């Protein structure tokens, strides 16, 4: 027995427990791979101050195998670092610092490489270019799971250097190395000459071949990229999906998010074990020096108070601090009053950009965003942002008869149900079924074979069937601008949304459930250290401080939604009032004329005149809270799209990119 015991390498452990890293099934493996690579690319670009431009290409090589390539225009990676970054687990720049970034541990991309190697046996291919003049490096890498070390496969373990310029491009073509050498040419009018293509100056491209499954819908790559576009309005994404369709999400701002500052840990956030390690790492100096230099917000005065509380001399050497004393210091830290950490190390998206991003991707009538002031949990600063989009689900209801015919003409969907779901935003399977049922269409009805009267019927049904009924609120969760797509129920964000009382904001909600209605809520948790429930970074842990901030943020956007809905209700009521009177006037006039023989039309005209005057007076009355209804009440950061029946859909059709469909 004793002879069989030996140490386990990190790589071996994760190779066996790949679900911990998000490679549970082929479908999720594809997403995780794309996600890790894109997150790394974005971090790299932002740190280098480059406006990120990212190419994602997924192609199917075998029935259950896909080749995934992700390229960025970032700063590139130094030649000697490449093997370590992509071929060694737990190697990275982000773990040991406290700074807001997407990646944290340095596991992700190398784990994806390992997964590819385990499932397909193919190496990870990396191209990295540091500048426009210098040669690019090309590596084919494998990870040695026993030792957790990289192995370079190509060119006898040396990698390949590709010269810059036209010569290099020829070599790449010959060797079948993929590289996007130029930015896509923006489209111009017919009479204009297209601009010269711009060469990509630097960047990294990683190509992996993995066992995977491509599927649209919830938890898909498409969803991830779309959500990323919402929270990162400064990013341009080119996504070529396995079916050969190119999706482009153009940036809506050129302004990069402000650079996040790195901070030292705050004493409150440090556990005993970590404190002991830090003490060991400190080679010399006094305890006071240790405390003031390793932590933020610890001045010599504070350090003195900590030492006094722990009954340790302020001048004792760190080397002589015993385990026992360390424990006392730890306890004393908790009791000493220390200023909260500075919060300028967090870069929120900002309300304006949130609105822009949300509006660009999500259809709606009403948008609102709120950024909370920063706060602290366990010594880690964090900040919450909330945004909400309401409505916009009635593209199907607003479509005109002519446009519908055109759409039916153009579609390649095989069944009518598919046509409805693919063409109209926010029209799910349930709603499509409802429309089909109301119109009494057969389940396999082909859209191209519809007759005129059937189109008429379809149009009627689309107008009248209530598609937003019973639809639950969609919660878009983000941590440091990265979308969270799984473990919705376990996440502190979802839990907080469900615990709130949305009924007071005009939505219907059954007890501790998501409210229903055409609503999308987006919650962004930004922090130097986001507390995830697991390594696969899918759900945020339940810290009271975080939940409280989320609640406050949601209340801010909720209040404004409530105002919007109430106001809409008010307008509707006024319309109804006028209607009610007009409806009865004819009857009243007729009855009066029957009774006393006076002229019906004359009475009717008299009554209509009075009705107009009376309802006009009622319209200017105060709202139900006694305030005069004015537009200013909403405050900042609210976007209201006026109802324009045709525009929304035609605009969508004219886009060169395929129609956007969110979930």
């Amino acid at each position: 027995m004793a002879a069989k015991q030996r140490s386990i390498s990190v790589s071996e452990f994760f190779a066996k427990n790949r679900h911990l890293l998000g490679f549970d099934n082929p479908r999720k493996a594809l997403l995780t791979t794309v996600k890790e690579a894109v997150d790394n690319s974005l971090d790299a670009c932002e740190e280098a101050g480059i406006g990120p431009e990212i190419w994602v290409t997924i192609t199917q090589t075998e029935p259950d195998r896909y080749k995934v390539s992700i390229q960025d225009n970032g700063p590139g990676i130094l030649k000697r670092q490449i093997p370590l970054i992509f071929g060694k687990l737990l190697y990275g720049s982000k773990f040991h610092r406290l700074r807001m970034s997407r990646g944290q541990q340095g596991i992700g991309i190398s784990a994806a490489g390992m997964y590819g190697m385990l499932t397909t046996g193919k190496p990870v291919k990396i191209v990295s270019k540091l500048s426009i003049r210098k040669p690019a490096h090309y590596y084919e890498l494998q990870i040695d799971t026993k030792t957790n070390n990289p192995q370079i496969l190509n060119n006898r373990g040396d990698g390949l250097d590709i010269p810059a310029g036209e010569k290099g491009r020829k070599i790449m073509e010959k060797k079948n190395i993929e590289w996007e050498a130029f930015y896509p040419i923006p489209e111009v009018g017919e009479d204009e000459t297209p601009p010269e293509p711009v060469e990509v100056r630097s960047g990294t491209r990683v190509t992996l071949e993995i066992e995977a499954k491509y599927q649209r819908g919830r938890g898909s790559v498409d969803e991830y990229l779309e959500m990323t576009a919402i929270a990162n309005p400064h990013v341009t994404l080119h996504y070529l999906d396995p079916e050969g369709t190119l999706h482009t999400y153009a940036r809506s701002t050129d302004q990069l998010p402000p650079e996040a500052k790195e901070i030292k840990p705050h004493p409150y956030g440090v556990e005993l074990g970590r404190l002991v390690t830090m003490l060991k790492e400190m080679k010399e100096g006094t305890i006071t020096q240790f405390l003031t230099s390793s932590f933020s917000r610890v001045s010599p005065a504070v350090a003195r108070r900590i030492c006094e509380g722990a009954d340790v001399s302020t001048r004792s050497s760190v080397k002589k601090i015993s385990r026992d004393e360390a424990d006392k210091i730890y306890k004393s830290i908790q009791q000493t009053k220390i200023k909260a950490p500075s919060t300028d190390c967090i870069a929120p998206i900002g309300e304006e950009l949130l609105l822009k991003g949300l509006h660009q991707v999500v259809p709606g009538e009403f948008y609102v965003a709120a950024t909370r002031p920063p706060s602290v949990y366990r010594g880690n600063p964090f900040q919450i942002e909330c945004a909400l989009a309401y409505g916009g689900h009635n593209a199907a209801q607003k479509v005109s008869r002519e446009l519908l015919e055109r759409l039916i003409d153009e579609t390649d969907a095989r069944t009518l149900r598919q046509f409805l779901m693919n063409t109209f935003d926010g029209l799910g399977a349930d709603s499509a079924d409802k429309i089909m049922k109301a119109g009494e269409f057969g389940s396999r009805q082909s859209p191209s074979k519809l007759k005129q009267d059937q189109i008429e019927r379809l149009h009627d049904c689309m107008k009248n069937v209530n598609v937003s009924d019973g639809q639950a609120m969609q919660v878009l969760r983000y941590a440091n601008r990265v979308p969270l797509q799984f473990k919705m129920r376990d996440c502190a964000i979802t839990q907080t949304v469900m615990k709130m009382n949305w009924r007071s904001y005009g939505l219907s909600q059954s007890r501790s459930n998501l409210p229903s209605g055409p609503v999308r809520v987006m919650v962004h948790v930004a922090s130097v250290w986001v507390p995830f429930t697991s390594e696969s970074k899918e759900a945020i842990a339940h810290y009271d401080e975080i939940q409280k901030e989320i609640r406050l943020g949601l209340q801010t956007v909720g209040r404004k939604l409530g105002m919007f809905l109430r106001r809409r209700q008010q307008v509707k009521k006024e319309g109804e009032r006028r209607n009610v009177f007009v409806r009865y006037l004819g009857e009243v006039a007729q009855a009066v004329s029957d009774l006393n023989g006076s002229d019906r039309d004359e009475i009717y005209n008299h009554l209509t005149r009075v009705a107009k005057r009376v309802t006009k007076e009622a319209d200017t009355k105060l709202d139900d809270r006694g305030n005069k209804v004015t537009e200013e009440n909403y405050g900042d950061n609210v976007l209201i799209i006026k109802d324009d029946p045709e525009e929304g859909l035609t605009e969508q059709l004219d886009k060169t990119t395929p129609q956007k469909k969110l979930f």
Partner: protein
Amino acid sequence: MAKKKAKKPTPAQQARKAKLTAKDKKTLNSLVGMADGVVRQASRGRAPYFEVPSRSLSNVKYSPTKKIIEMGSSKNKRELFNLSQARTYMQTLLVGRGCKELIEQGKTTSIRGLYYLLKHTIDGTREETFNDQGDCDPVIEDVEVTLNALREELHVYASNRGAMVGNIQLIDSGDEIDCSRMGSGGYAIPSIVEEEVMQFVKCDADFILHVEKDTVWRRFNEDKFWKQHNCILTHGNGQPPRGVRRLLSRMHNELGLPIYCLLDNDPWGYYIYSVIKQGSINLAYESRRMAIPGAKFIGLRSRDYELCELNPSVTIKLSDNDIKRANQIAKYPWFEKKKRWQKEIKKMLSNGFKLEVEALISKDISYVTQEYVPERLAEANFLD
């Protein structure tokens, strides 16, 4: 709508117009007046409204001298340009028009008939003028009070409910009826029993016994109680309709017959007695014609449970609603000052149960006709 109107003045209908009685003319005048008011208000650019006397407890007064419930003077505005009243406003005018049609044609119809006469879809909408009869009935009552016209003056009647048997002969719409020869079913009391329709020919009875419902009435009829005690036997099928109340009132006043009521020992029974005696809150404007201040209450009394040694299993537990209602009734001004009634209600509440007249059957099938009522009559111990 418009077509209907065009059809109306057919020769047959024109001819009928001549047969209007003085009463009809008066009603027609007030109906036309209602419409004139609308024209006047509308042509001056004012929002038209009616004033409908309020028919609630707050607007009825108990007159201790006349011993009946009378309607007060408070009125509710019914406006056309008020969201919650617009529909009823329109319905009020429709009922007015329907009544005018009936009067001009010299016909009468049931309230259900009037409902069907007026029910149609409003032009250009999917809305019906009246959704169901419950929508229509209160509007008819509103028109009655607004115009101060009785239902029969509007040529509308309620469905027949209640029966009569006994030593009385009368003429109903020209037919002579002998109420002592009505078999087991009795004479169905019509809704309109006014002088013009019904005349009394001969009456040998000494008093009237009014029972609450059909089952008890049949017991009395089968046992020929009215023959033995020489009385008239009526029932009103629960809360007596106007026809029954008006007939009782006429027989009491014109023939000088005392009236005794045999009702259940529960809040519902108390209230039936109260309606017969003082008039109802809802129809307070009719109390003058219908209330019988001289009516007496025979039973069932709360003390009868012990007096008649009834079996505990025939009692029915008072519900929360019953208790609430009993307390309400005890506070009505016309019960408030009657100590015996207060004691009676208190006794029922302390019993905690109610008794139906049928409970007496548990003693013997004919106990109620052969012992209970004769004994009470002999004692002359009534609640007033």
